[in-house]
Each structure stands twice: as structure tokens, then as C-alpha cells.
């Protein structure tokens, strides 16, 4: 045997990886998944999903025409949170609440002035559209805030000392203005990388199984490890490039602060790609069919990464069985790490456990893939 001893496995792996790269680039549906879909999703998540209710349209029913009531209406009109429609009659505004054009009503009763001066409880009433629970909660909170500020100022003007009270002073760290985009855009990187790592990998490799070209490769001296490595490397590079794209977009298009280090970001992303790619490989090896692989990748990769990763919905509030399921979803750890890296910085007490768990899930997927990949054709 006069073949070079050490480089052979490496050379084989590299040429297979090159073949894999061509395969991705030459197929239009791969281009769609690798480049176009991530871009669309990034834009949708960045612009489309916002939990910040800026200027909610509400109605004010003003049944008291005196100065205090007018001044309260002005306070609501001046608030950046609300867009106000006023009426003297509640029945004029109720249909708009039903149709969803208004998300709440502030009712100032006819005896508002008297109740205010008598310091009666609850001189005004707020009705919200409970069919949108999140917005309803904001309407209630913001209305309370506007009223409290107005009341303090009003009492100050009347040279009355406001009654002593215990006042909560909230400070939101890392995101003082509570811009939901700051949490959502970093989180969406996890979804984009899941699409490339899991969906694209599963599809392209399932196609090889389907067409029998995988068997052809297996018939060569290539070992299973070399084969798996050659599959992983191109998708790994593609995944890391999508990370660069997403991060640049987050910082320069969506103005999200980045307080961590690039090195930590790269480390966390690399750790995430291990289970993401592992899952893709496992799906392709287990199904050997593009159609089933596409469905499985969507339902076990994309959906959990979007809905069960804590990216939009809070994991802690989910019921126990679902919380248990989320512990094996790698995107969950990635989302937490990304939000921490972007907003808080390199907090290693968050990052190390996340990296360890992602690698553990990844090792599990890769081990299963190794078992599911036949050594030789039966």
C-alpha cells in the first residue's frame, strides 16, 4: 500500500464535503431554505412580531364636562401609549370595542369631580377588550399609570400634599424601555439556524438516501465517521454564516445592543449547531425519505424552536409535561444564551450550562445517527 497514511481520511472527508457543498448550491430548493427563507423570517420576526403596544387606540367616555375631567382627558391624550377617541355616551363607543377598533374604554362618570374631591375610591372605570389578553393587561396598567401621574400633579396644583404611600420603583435591567424587539430579534437567530441546521440538512441528505447515492458512497472505503463529518462541515459553515448575517441585521438593521463578546457568541452558536445538525442527520438517516423528513424536521425542529424555546412564550408558565419536553430542545438553551449575550453580556453562569446541555443533546443525536447509518449495505 503506497497511499499516504495520515491524510487519507482527511482527504476523503474534504472531498466529500466539497461534493456536499456543490449539492447544496446547485439545488434551487436548498437555496430557498438556506438563504431566502432565513431572510424572510428574520424580517418578519424583526418587524412583524412586537409585543410592545405603542399607542393603543382607546375610547374615553366623558360624562363630566368640568375642568378636572377635561384635564384628565388631556393627560390621556398626551400619553404616548394611547390614541384617544372621545364621546359623551358609552353606547357610541361600545360597537368599536366589539369590532376591535378600540382596545379599551375609560369611563369618567358624571359625578367624577365630586368623587375626586371626596377622595372616593375608583372615581373612573376602565373597560378593556379581554379577547386580546395581553393588550388588555397593557391598557389596564398604562391607564393606571396615566391616572396616578395626573392625580399627583393635580393634587400638587391644588397645593394639597398627596397622601403618603409606598411606591414601587421598577427598574428593568438590560432593557430599560422594555423593547420586545431586543429579545425577539436575538431569539429569531435560533429559529433561522434551526432551519439551516435541521431542515436543510434533513432534506438534502434524505434525498441522497432516497436516490440511493448514499449507498454508493457507503460502498467506497469511506468510514462512517468520515461520512458523517463530511456531511456536517458544509452545513456547519452555512449555519455559522447565517449567524453572522443575523447578528449584523440585529445590530445594524434592528438596533439591538450587543453587549457580549464575539468569541462567546461564536462558541455558543457552534455548540448549538451540534444538536441542530445532529437532529437533521438523524431525521434523514431514520426516514430516508424527503417528504417524511421535511415534515419531521418542521414538527420536531422548526415548531419547537419557535414556540417552545422561550423565544416568544415564557417556558416557566407552561404546564409541567411541556416544560419537561423543552429541556431536550436545544433551541431553548440557545435562545437564553443569545438574549443574555446581546442584552447582558458574557454571563458565563448562563452560558456554560447552556453549552453543556446543547452538546449533551447533540451527542445523543449523533450517537443515534451513527447507529442508524449502516456500516455496509445489507
Amino acid at each position, binding site marked *: 500500500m503506497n497511499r499516504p497514511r495520515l491524510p487519507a481520511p482527511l482527504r476523503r472527508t474534504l472531498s466529500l464535503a466539497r461534493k456536499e457543498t456543490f449539492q447544496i448550491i446547485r439545488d434551487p430548493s436548498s437555496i430557498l431554505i438556506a438563504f431566502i427563507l432565513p431572510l424572510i423570517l428574520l424580517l418578519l420576526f424583526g*418587524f412583524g412580531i412586537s409585543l410592545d403596544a405603542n399607542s393603543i387606540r382607546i375610547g374615553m367616555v366623558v360624562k363630566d364636562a368640568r375642568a378636572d375631567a377635561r384635564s384628565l382627558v388631556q393627560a390621556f391624550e398626551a400619553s404616548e401609549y394611547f390614541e384617544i377617541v372621545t364621546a359623551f355616551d358609552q353606547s357610541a363607543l361600545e360597537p368599536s370595542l366589539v369590532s376591535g377598533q378600540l382596545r379599551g374604554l375609560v369611563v369618567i362618570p358624571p359625578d367624577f369631580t365630586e368623587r375626586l374631591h371626596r377622595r372616593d375610591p375608583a372615581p373612573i372605570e376602565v373597560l378593556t377588550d379581554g*379577547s*386580546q*389578553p395581553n393588550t388588555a393587561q397593557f391598557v389596564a396598567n398604562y391607564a393606571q399609570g396615566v391616572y396616578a401621574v395626573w392625580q399627583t400633579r393635580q393634587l400638587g396644583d391644588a397645593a394639597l400634599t398627596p397622601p403618603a*404611600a409606598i411606591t*414601587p420603583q421598577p427598574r428593568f435591567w438590560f432593557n430599560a424601555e422594555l423593547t420586545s424587539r431586543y429579545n425577539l430579534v436575538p431569539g429569531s437567530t435560533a429559529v433561522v439556524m434551526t432551519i439551516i441546521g435541521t431542515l436543510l440538512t434533513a432534506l438534502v441528505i434524505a434525498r441522497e438516501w432516497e436516490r440511493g447515492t448514499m449507498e454508493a458512497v457507503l460502498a467506497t472505503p469511506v468510514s462512517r465517521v468520515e461520512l458523517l463529518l463530511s456531511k456536517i462541515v458544509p452545513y456547519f459553515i452555512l449555519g455559522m454564516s447565517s449567524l453572522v448575517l443575523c447578528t449584523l441585521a440585529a445590530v445594524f438593521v434592528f438596533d439591538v445592543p450587543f453587549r457580549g463578546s464575539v468569541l462567546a457568541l461564536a462558541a455558543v452558536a457552534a455548540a448549538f449547531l451540534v444538536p441542530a445538525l445532529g437532529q437533521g442527520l438523524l431525521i434523514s438517516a431514520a426516514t430516508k425519505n424527503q417528504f417524511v423528513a421535511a415534515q419531521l424536521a418542521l414538527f420536531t425542529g422548526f415548531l419547537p424552536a419557535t414556540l417552545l424555546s422561550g423565544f416568544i412564550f*415564557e417556558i416557566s408558565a407552561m404546564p409541567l409535561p411541556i416544560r419537561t419536553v423543552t429541556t431536550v430542545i436545544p433551541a431553548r438553551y440557545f435562545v437564553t444564551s443569545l438574549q443574555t449575550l446581546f442584552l*447582558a453580556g458574557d454571563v458565563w453562569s448562563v452560558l456554560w450550562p447552556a453549552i453543556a446541555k446543547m452538546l449533551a443533546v447533540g451527542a445523543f443525536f449523533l450517537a443515534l445517527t451513527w447507529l442508524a447509518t449502516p456500516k455496509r449495505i445489507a
Partner: protein
Amino acid sequence: MWRRILSLIIKEMLAIWRDPKGRAVILVPPLLQLVIFAFAMTMEVRNVDIAVLNLDTGSRGRDVEAGILGASPFDEVIGLQSVSQIQEVIDSQRVIAVVHIGQDFTRRIETGQSADVQIILDGRKSNASQIANSYLSGIISRVSATAYPGGSAPEAIRIRHWFNPNLEYAWFTLPGLVATITLLTTIIVTALSVARERELGTFDQLLVSPLRPIEIVVGKSAPGLIFGYMHGTFFILVAVFGFKIPFAGSLLALYGSMFFYLLAVIGIGLFISAISSTQQQAILGAFVFASPAVLLSGFMSPVENMPGWMQLATQINPLRHFLHISQGVFLKDLPLSEVVRSTVPLILIAMVTLPASAWLLRKTSS
């Protein structure tokens, strides 16, 4: 003509049902989504820990602590000893919030002065921390009300939530699922229908049969319509009987507008079908359509929070209109005029997508 169409419809239904893949498409996604969406989609705060740093030695500080200990959303309340620990527990996400009571807290209250309680929250979880903040503020106001001899500032505002008095998130999610699930089912069933025949090569046989193109379109639309109605009905039943969500409006109005909604979606599904040559491409096409449709419908976050140009773009999204109808009819007894107003865009979308896909289907198969 009707007999031909009917037999084509029966054939289509059987084709889906006899194919194990087709059966999986019909049965698995809705059940999976029921579990994920109905239970996991929540904006509430539960099972989170918080920390209290009470530097006050008096009784008022303990009152605040007791109030927090008794509050339901918090799992564990950790006692901190010094200010320097705050950063550690917040940074590592050990707790979502720290309540910081200063040294002179009780003294200030007892001398009739106002006192502050600082709440430090983890802004990385902007929604959860906001909700935690309103819980904590509520607790503090209750302590405040009993702390001063003459009583403190009275409760300023009475709040009533219409249509969903306890703001239960499931009341939002399940009526929304009636719309989203039917979209997913119908789009996948329809998108696969032509692609499956193309893959098997039977589509050419269909084209040379005496069926006219319009009849083929009707036959290919029927399964999406039937399965869409079946899944929609299933979720209405789950919402009403499983989750005890009151159905306030007219079932007839909901089913009536659902017809046009499904037609609009079927048009898009056939369109995807016409441009896909394999079932795998059809599935991906359906996915590329469905994810933006769900994201930009108001189901994941309110449409009114989006920038103006994007709100305008949501007008061509059938899910946005039907979501409004479904949630409205369910909870608010949406008046018929309002249902019609939102059904008109659905009819318009169907009038564009159906003929366009029929045309494309003829073009790609000749």
C-alpha cells in the same frame, strides 16, 4: 357533470386516506398543535422565583415580604443579604425580579412619609418581567393601603375586562386555533393533491380524461374544504367542551364565513401545487406560505403593533381576516355586519387565487 365531479371528489378523499403519509398529514399536525399551542402559548407568569432583599428591621418590611410569599405566581422566594447579591441572581436568571426594601422603610412610614420599594427586573424577558412587575406593584399597594393610619391613596381605577373577565389566555388561543389549524390543514392537503399525482404520473391521465379543467379544480378543492371544516369543527368542540370557553356568537355566521376563508386558502394551496413537481416541494411551499401567514395574522402578536406598511400587507392574508371573525364570534358575539365586513376581503382573495391557480395549473401541465 355533477356525477363526474362527485366521483372525482370521492377519489381524492380516498387517495389521501389510503396513503399513510396523507393520513399522517391529516391526523398528526392538528393534535400536535393542539398540545403545543393550547397549553404552551401563554403570556402569564408562573413557576418563577423571585428574591427579596429586606434591609429594613421594622414590621412594614416584613409585611411586604409576607405579601410576596403569599402571592401565587412565585414559586420560591429567596432571601438576599446584601446589595451585591442582586446582580448575581439577576444575571444568572436565578430569579426574574428582586424586591429591594431600604433600611429606613418602616421608620419613614411610621413618621408619615412616603416610602419606596425598588423592584429590579430581568429585562431580557420583557413580557414576563412586566407582568411580574404588575403583580408586585399590586402587592405593594395593598400593603400601602394598610400601612398608614388614615389609609393611603385609595384604589384609583376600577378595571373590568370584557369578553374574558379573568384574561385567560386559552380564550384567545383556542378560537384562534380554529382559524390557524384550518389554514394549515387545508393548505397542506390542497398543495399535496396535484403534486402527489405528478409524482405518481397519474395527473396526465386525469388531464386526458373527459373532465374539464374547472371540474378538476373543483375536485381538487373539495378535500381541503372538507378536512378544513372537520378540523375547524373539532377545535370548536375542544374549545367549548374541553376548555369551557363560552361561544357567544352565531355558529352559522362562523361556518358561513369559513367557507370563503377556505376557498381563499385552497386557491393558494392549488397555486403551490401547480408550481411544485414533488410532494416535498409542495410541503416546503406550504411552509413558506404558512409561516408568514401565521406570524402576520395577529395570532402571535397584535397587528396594530406592526409598522404601517406591514399592517397594510396583512390585508392580503386570509388568516388575519378570519382570525378576527373567529375570535370575535366566539367571545364577543361579533355582529353580522362586522362578520360580513371581514368576509368581503376573503371573497376577494378567493376570486384572485382560485382563477389564478386554475390558469397556472393548466399552463404547467400542458
